[in-house]
């Protein structure tokens, strides 16, 4: 168990908690702020890259080498590793925002919507899995009450509802909740991880199982 993060300072840039505040700082035209923002961005890119390479606990020195920003500066921007992971999650989120979109949502026959949905979720999983694994390890020791996870989950849940709106439209209340939870079971992060391990990373098999499972659930509703 790593130590709890120290008291957070009020510096919005160092904590990356608010993208809006960040933008305000940058548009003031202060050169130092702009450089700092560039460096910060390079650091976060490097963290994401290391996570993606399977290094869930990158050393600050590695991040420094990869980003070209000195260790000293990194420590100035991020006081604790947990802050770095948190900021990297926001950073990645902004970067993958376009890939998160599900095109033609809710349109087409059921079979087509199922296939599109499964393919999309597998693609999102491939992008988000490395950082999610890393963040979870941090979240275990830090009381990361999952603002970051929560935001993602809301978007993904809504997508699911929109994609299968015709099937769920006749349900309401507790019955709806139960049907949605049941149908969505395979797409929980842990489920995808489990399937990934069970099928040794074979995405075709994962897709086949997920498609079949979703079809079974949605056809019952018709």
């Amino acid at each position, binding site marked *: *168990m790593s130590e709890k993060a120290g008291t957070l300072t009020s510096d919005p840039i160092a904590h990356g908690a608010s993208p809006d505040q960040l933008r305000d700082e940058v548009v003031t035209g202060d050169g130092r702020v702009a450089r700092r923002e560039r460096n910060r961005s390079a650091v976060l890119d490097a963290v994401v890259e290391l996570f993606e390479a399977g290094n869930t606990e990158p050393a600050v020195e590695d991040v420094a080498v990869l980003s070209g920003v000195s260790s000293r500066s990194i420590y100035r921007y991020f006081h604790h590793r947990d802050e770095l992971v948190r900021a990297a999650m926001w950073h990645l989120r902004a970067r993958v925002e376009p890939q998160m979109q599900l095109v033609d949502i809710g349109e087409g026959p059921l079979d087509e919507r199922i296939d599109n949905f499964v393919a999309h979720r597998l693609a999102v999983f491939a992008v988000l899995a490395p950082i999610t694994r890393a963040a*979870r*390890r941090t979240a*275990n*020791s830090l009381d990361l009450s999952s603002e970051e996870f929560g935001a993602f989950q809301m978007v993904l849940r809504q997508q699911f509802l929109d994609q299968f709106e015709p099937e769920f439209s006749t349900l309401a209340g507790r019955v709806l*909740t*139960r049907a949605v*939870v*049941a149908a969505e*079971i*395979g797409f*929980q992060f*842990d*489920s995808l991880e*489990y*399937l990934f391990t*069970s*099928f040794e990373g074979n995405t075709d*098999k994962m897709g*086949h*199982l997920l498609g*079949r*499972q979703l079809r*079974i*659930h949605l056809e*019952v509703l018709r």
Partner: protein
Amino acid sequence: MTSELMNPVSTEIRTDGRIDRRLRNREAVLEATIKMFIEGEVIPAMDDVAERAGVSLRSVYRYFATRDELIRAALEQWLLQEAPHLVAQPPIEGDLAERIEYFCGQRLALYFRFAPLARVALVLDEADPLVRDLFDYGRDTLSEQFAAQFETELGLLGHQDWAMATTAATLPLQYHLFEYMHVGCGFDATEMHALVVEQLQLHLSAL
């Protein structure tokens, strides 16, 4: 902690009163930690543990250099105590509906018994061998029990289809999904039971 201290039957230890006391205290610290786990305290504070165990904070640190070490030792002890309940139940006879009911009931009982332990284990570290073994064991017994209980339905399938069907049908019975339903979605035992029964019915009757 030296290996002699871990081994209470050694004659050297029995002759030394101080070591006896040390072992008793160490035991008390572990028991107090387990009690706190059961009460939902996933990362108990060292001074709370000391108070509960009736020993000084200094002693706690003498037995366990770090909180991680304490949590790990307590988890291990707890696991040993609970191990008999992890042993797989033999399959029952009956029609498909009866077997599904029984199987889901078994799995849920197991979940409610082991969830506090699993939560502690996951806080420790997913990569810890002890934690990994625990979850691997849980998954393996789930697959084995499932295969034994639903042999009639699964027996006709080829290897590929068998693996696919087993993975699909046992997915909703995984620890993380029970946790998701119970903690994440606020379902109670009855709702969870209804949901997993329905899942198994869908999967097994689709074969």
